[in-house]
């Protein structure tokens, strides 16, 4: 009986967690190689969503997807060049505040171009229709696409770090920046690379999530994605890319279980409470996370 109640929450949670996972991997990439907590990550997603839905009427949906993702990558690279690189030798908290200030500016810019707090409807999907009914939950093809995308990104990153020189250089930089520079790795290039990748991942999340919820507003990336993605990254150990996947999926499930049987009259915002409990719990009990090697 209990399994019947829990199973749908788990299915929904995994799908939601996949989106968290995408953003969380972007956070981990940046933290791993530069030790920066990127609070502007949510806005990469929002910008991608805006890029897609503002251009889809004129260029069509699939090209618009590309426009959105490219807009996110371009934003990430601009942020890296204009803000992160000039500040790169400052205390890490200065950089945290700088990314947070970036987020507030980007949010406000979206409101300027997105006509205030207007709600955009997002009905277009990459692949339409229902895939299957699993434990009473209708799983659409779009949701399948999100899960597959997470898998593709995961395998792709694993191959990138294992088999390419650039991937190896990125790992080396994360372990010993000074020594890496001495053997001829250009830190500036590595920094741009990981920020670009984080923009790509945030952009993917930003174009894939709105069709699942049916609509979006400005700043949804920071409001709906940033905190869960950070918690997922911490859950996975903050430096582990597989950890970020596992963390994202587990957090999605935990959130759905938390909100499943609690009416919002008795306890509003149960999901946010669950996120806080998981975050504090993991930081107190196992600061290195589920799969992290270093704290």
């Amino acid at each position, binding site marked *: 009986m209990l399994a019947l109640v829990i199973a749908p929450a788990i299915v929904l949670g995994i799908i939601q967690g996949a989106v968290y996972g995408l953003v969380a991997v972007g956070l981990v990439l940046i933290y791993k190689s530069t030790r920066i907590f990127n609070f502007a990550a949510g806005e990469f997603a929002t910008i991608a969503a805006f890029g897609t839905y503002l251009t889809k009427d004129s260029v069509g949906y699939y090209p618009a997807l590309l426009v959105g993702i490219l807009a996110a990558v371009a934003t990430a690279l601009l942020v890296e060049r204009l803000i992160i690189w000039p500040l790169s030798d400052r*205390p890490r*908290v*200065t950089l945290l*505040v700088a990314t947070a*200030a970036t987020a507030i500016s980007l949010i406000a810019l979206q409101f*300027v171009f997105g006509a205030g707090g207007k709600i955009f409807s997002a009905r277009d999907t990459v692949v339409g229709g229902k895939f299957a009914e699993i434990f009473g939950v209708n799983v659409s093809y779009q949701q399948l696409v999100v899960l597959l995308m997470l898998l593709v990104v995961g395998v792709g990153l694993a191959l990138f770090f294992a088999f390419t020189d650039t991937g190896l250089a990125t790992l080396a930089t994360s372990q010993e920046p000074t020594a890496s520079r001495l053997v001829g790795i250009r830190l500036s290039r590595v920094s741009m690379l990981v920020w670009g990748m984080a923009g790509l991942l945030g952009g993917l999340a930003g174009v894939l999530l709105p069709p699942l919820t049916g609509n979006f507003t400005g700043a949804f990336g920071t409001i709906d994605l940033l905190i869960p993605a950070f918690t997922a990254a911490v859950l996975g150990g903050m430096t582990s890319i597989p950890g970020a996947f596992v963390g994202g999926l587990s957090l999605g499930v935990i959130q759905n279980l938390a909100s499943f049987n609690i009416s919002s009259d008795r306890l509003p915002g149960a999901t946010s409470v669950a*996120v*806080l409990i998981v975050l504090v719990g993991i*930081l107190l009990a196992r600061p290195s996370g589920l799969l992290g090697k270093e704290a």
Partner: protein
Amino acid sequence: MAATLERPDAEVPVGPEPGVDRQRTRPGMAGWAGRAAFPLVLLAVGTWYVLSSTPVHSDVLASGVIIAVGALSLNVLVGYVGQISLGHQAFIGIGAFTAAYVMTKSTDNFFAALVVAAVVGALQAVFLGLIALRVRGLYFALVTLSWGAVAEQCVFRLKGFTGGGAGASAPRPGLFDSDRGYLVLASIVLGMVLLIDWRLMATKAGRAMQAIRESPAVAANYGISVPRYTLFAFGVSGLYAGIAGALYASRRLTVQAGDFTFAGVALTYLIVTVVGGLRRRGGIATFSIFYVLGGFYLPQLAKHINESVAANAGYYVQVISGVLAILTLIFQPEGLGTFTAPIGRWLKGERFQLGHGGGGAEGINVRP
């Protein structure tokens, strides 16, 4: 061996503080008169501005004064003790809802509500501080971020505490009921908070907090109880935030959960603190006023450009404030304190001298 135990000669010349050329020439009569006139002139300009403009202008100024109190609360954490808070909407909001709760449920005395809000604000901050003892630096920033989200989505929407979505009402005290009167009340409270903050930093507790910021390990070696003073700092920060919250509540007359958002409160206060200058209470208070005046006058200027700019002027102000914070971090880590700190020293009888502020001006300094 005995020689090493002797007290050092009391007449050992103490060199000047590094980086600061403190010329202890006492100002003459004219100098003191000029220094005394400065605050009076400021007060006169302020009074003239308030009396010659509409009550709306006073309300705007009052909101700036309240932001100043809230930003000073953030300054205790980020500036003094070196803990970053990204959940200040929880700090301010809990103060506001507590004040409203007290005034609707038990007494309609504003000042009683203010005290209760300050105490409750301090308690919730100390509770959060307990986590900060174990979780430091960037990770603690995440905890505060998450705590802010819980406050936004859960605590502020509990029907028993905040009246759910409808919000709670918070009347003003009778004597200060008008917008101008309320500005006077808020300014008096800000003055008291500034005074407390100033004197507190000159005590052992103030020095202990700053030592913990520089290095908890070194501070502990000098006999400073790191947990105790960290919690103390959280208490002080929560106290200021509770006061700011109570002022916020009565300024708006009603409080709603939607007033306290991450972007609207936590980030805004952080930006005001950074641009005003960490550990520069004068800079923070000054920039708070500039911030609200900018938010008020820039949209009016924008009307002369074109309609669409004017309609979105509030958002443009937000964009500008974010950019300003980034520029401050890159080029001028002392923020507006670069200009206000020399004025402060001049008022205390030193020569006017731009440049080194003394007292650690290295910007944000939190050990990860």
